[in-house]
């Protein structure tokens, strides 16, 4: 791996060496390193590009790293990664994609991740997207995440895209069984003329299932964002969705939360707030000795944390 690839690996997965546990590192469209463990098997798909990650039932305290690195200009890829998480497991999955594009061709990663989370299993899924490079070619990222939670399954997803992605369509769909629980925290920052579209749909099908989707975004310069979050309450369930955005400069942010209750026992709430940084927040931090610019950076980094 060259120094650029190593730097990207650090940005998206906090990795400076090969991780402990199962991993698959994909660099410029090819598998660069892979490790399966006794409980976690990673297999190349035969019918299309991508891998299957098969986690045995009752696997606890194990992790899987599957970072993707693109440093070749003009490379576009479509990858299918399917996760089969066995019953009663408790695992952490760290994905992430970084693009370094210093050429003139557009580089794009389209990743379709499907999770089949077995009964009473627990998953923490961390996904970080990052772009860099001085080339005129765009850095494009279109992640699709499909989540199937069986009865009693729990998933916590943390998705962040803080810098360097020119255009993104983030699509997340979830289907929840009885007593299933889904928690999603997304943070996005756009600058320049970047555009980010994020669409969430959660079907709350099972009895006593619940979901909480929180998106925090910062839109700077002339960038644009559109956040849609749709909850369908089909049973005794509870759902909450929140979109909170800081808007700056000449940016534009559209938030469209949607709720549909198909049961009298569904309890659904949405919140959306868009606004600039409050003047009193800046003043408070300035009275602690920060300059206005430092205060602004502090507020944004705290907000997106």
């Amino acid at each position, binding site marked *: 791996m060259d120094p650029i690839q190593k730097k990207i690996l650090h940005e998206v997965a906090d990795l400076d060496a090969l991780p402990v546990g199962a991993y698959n590192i994909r660099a410029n469209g090819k598998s660069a390193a892979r490790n399966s463990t006794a409980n976690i098997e990673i297999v190349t798909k035969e019918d299309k590009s991508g891998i299957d990650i098969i986690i045995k039932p009752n696997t606890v305290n194990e992790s899987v790293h599957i970072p993707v690195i693109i440093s070749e200009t003009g490379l576009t890829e479509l990858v299918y990664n399917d996760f089969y998480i066995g019953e009663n497991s408790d695992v952490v999955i760290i994905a992430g994609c970084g693009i370094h594009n210093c050429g003139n061709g557009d580089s794009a990663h389209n990743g379709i991740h499907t999770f089949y989370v077995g009964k009473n299993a627990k998953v923490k899924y961390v996904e970080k997207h990052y772009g860099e490079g001085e080339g005129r070619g765009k850095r494009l990222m279109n992640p699709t995440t499909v989540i199937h939670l069986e009865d009693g399954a729990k998933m916590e997803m943390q998705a962040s895209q803080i810098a360097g992605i020119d255009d993104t369509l983030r699509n997340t769909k979830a289907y929840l069984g009885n007593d299933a629980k889904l928690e999603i925290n997304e943070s996005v920052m756009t600058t320049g003329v970047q555009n980010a579209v994020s669409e969430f749909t959660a079907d709350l099908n099972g009895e006593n299932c619940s979901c909480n989707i929180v998106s*925090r975004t910062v839109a700077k310069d002339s960038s644009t964002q559109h956040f849609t979050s749709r909850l369908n309450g089909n049973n005794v369930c509870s759902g909450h969705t929140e979109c909170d955005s800081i808007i700056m400069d000449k940016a534009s942010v559209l938030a469209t939360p949607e709720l549909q209750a198909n049961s009298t026992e569904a309890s659904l709430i949405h919140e959306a707030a868009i606004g600039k940084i409050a003047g009193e927040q800046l*003043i*408070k931090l300035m*009275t*602690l000795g*920060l300059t206005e610019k430092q205060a602004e950076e502090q*507020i944004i980094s*705290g907000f997106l944390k």
Partner: protein
Amino acid sequence: MLELQNVSYEIDGKTILKDINLKIDDHFVAVTGPNGSGKSTLAKIIAGILQPTSGKIFLDGEDITELSITDRANKGISYAFQQPVRFKGLTVKDLMRLSAGKETPYSTLCEMLNEVGLQSKNYINRSLDASLSGGELKRIEIAMIFARSSKLSLFDEPEAGIDLWSFQKLIGIFEKMVEQTKGNVIIISHQERILNIADKIIYLKDGTIAQYDVREKILPQLLDSITAD
């Protein structure tokens, strides 16, 4: 030492402060007066949040009238807001660290929170958002000023919303602050118990200093006038 020379502040044709001349070199100075007398405006002018329409402000002999909020903070002025600001995402620890300095050990930050009557383990990692009550925010605000340990600390009605917390503890903090910094603490307050610890009291009325003298002289008159009302 803080000095104000002929400071006036007008907004929308209305005079809020009129020709204020003031020297503060005592450790505890309380500012009191009726609502709308200009107390908070005075504090904001000292902190640099508002610019006076005319007049000059000196800190230890240096003219700071044109200095920004940031520059004044770095020269040693701290200001506890009457209504503390909420931040989504920033935690108590973040704010305490910004106040105390990056190098301050975690344990010291915790001690400072305990000092204001907040069990640090329950608060240090919490976000300064709507989940905290007004009283909790107020105590965190005081802890931040305590952490800054600067030579001039301004408090705008620090006692509001913290009624359950013993006054003695609050007063103890002010005393500790003076002891550590050998500086000045200016407290805007209506509370007799706070006025009681002041070396001097400023009584503001209609934007002017109606009285400014040692506590022993002013406090009995103030209490008499309140009783008379």
